[in-house]
């Protein structure tokens, strides 16, 4: 029987961490892109468009991420399409992230005084032009801190992907525990690595918040 040293465990966890980082990054970026599109729909003042976006956001905010993962992993398979854990996790996390980012950013957009919209309207800007040239450049300043703060939630959210078989940090921890029977050691290390990933994010979110507020 193979004996696992501390370093074996740690090294293997670090290898799996790459997948956690990759999934987080990919989900965050694609979630951000979808979120930006949804933001335009959500603030468009077009009734049905806003309603549909609201429905979408309510669904992804109001149901557990785990259930969303199951829906993608098993749901798409019902149509005879083979879904890898990686694809299902990416899709579910993207949509989940986009729903939260849209709401965060909507708050930032609404924090911009109404007079800015009116000035744009008066100068014959279209809605998209107002967003692009007047509103978003200002809203982005306010959005940086909460957006970086939310990225912590995405990193932690990827842990759930382990349940549909995605070999991330959490899944690797489970596998190593099954092989070594040292749950406390293994999961302590897992937790430490997550913390090492998340702490710099939440720390910089705080820093950014301070800096951008002072500059205003």
């Amino acid at each position, binding site marked *: 029987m193979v004996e696992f040293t501390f370093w074996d465990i740690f090294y293997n966890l670090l290898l799996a961490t790459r997948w956690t980082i990759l999934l987080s990054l990919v989900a965050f970026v694609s979630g951000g892109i979808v979120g930006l599109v949804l933001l335009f729909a959500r603030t468009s003042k077009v009734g049905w468009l806003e309603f549909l976006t609201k429905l979408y956001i309510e669904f992804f905010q109001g149901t557990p991420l785990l259930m969303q993962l199951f829906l993608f992993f098993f749901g798409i398979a019902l149509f005879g399409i083979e879904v890898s854990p990686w694809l299902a996790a990416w899709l579910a996390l993207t949509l989940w992230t986009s729903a939260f980012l849209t709401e965060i950013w909507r708050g930032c957009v609404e924090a911009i*005084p109404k*007079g*800015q919209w*009116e*000035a744009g*309207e*008066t*100068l*014959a*800007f*279209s809605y998209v*032009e107002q967003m692009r*040239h*007047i509103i978003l*450049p*200002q809203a982005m*300043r306010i959005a940086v801190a909460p957006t970086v703060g939310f990225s912590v939630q995405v990193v932690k959210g990827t842990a759930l992907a382990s349940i549909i078989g995605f070999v991330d940090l959490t899944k690797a921890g489970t596998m190593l525990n099954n092989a070594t029977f040292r749950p406390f050691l293994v999961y302590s290390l897992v937790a430490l690595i997550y913390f090492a990933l998340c702490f710099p994010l939440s720390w910089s979110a705080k820093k950014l918040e301070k800096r951008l507020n002072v500059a205003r």
Partner: protein
Amino acid sequence: MSLVSIVDVRKSFGSTEVLKGVSVEIARGDVVAVIGKSGSGKSTLLRCINGLETYDSGAIVVDGIDVGKERDNLRNLRRSVGMVFQQFNLFPHLTAAENVMLAPRVVNKETPGESARLAEEMLAKVGLADKGTNYPSQLSGGQQQRVAIARALAMRPNVLLCDEITSALDPELVNEVLRVVEQLAREGMTLILVTHEMRFARDVGTKLVFMHMGKVHEEGPPKALFADPKTPELRQFIGSVH
């Protein structure tokens, strides 16, 4: 023919009727001062002219464009109607010059070179040729408002709406803004001003519109109206602001 024709316009906010059948005809080159107590509907009327506010019935036609009918054509309307606000509403993330050239560049698709030259010209017109690189937060209230005027002028509007543009300014800054407006009036720009500056309304205006309880209570040449108000309401109003 009138440049701006307002016919029997009515508008309610909920159960409060703020415009109760307003009619005003404005010719090219007119300088119209709209005065009246707060709540008389003068700002709402102004905001109806460029579609910032919708109205319930009646008609407003600006330069041949029917404001009520052509909701989809608002872009054309707004190219023809400029507006300056009480709170300036400059874009704080852009410099004075960028504020002025943004709409020509984005809406009128002018080249960066053209719009930069235009910004220079417009800023010079309002006496701020040397402030192009300043951000709004680095300018005084009077300077900010003059940048806002330059920004509106850069779209080469046929009419300029001014919504209490000196009300948010410190008293010593009011005149520099009024001088710019007076200059525009002399150049023949059609102006519609909601204002509390009675002296300015009398000296520069070609037409005075006194609004009271959502209606045009009295209108005519400013000097005549100030000298001899026909209604007790106008007499009282002139007395109260003097």
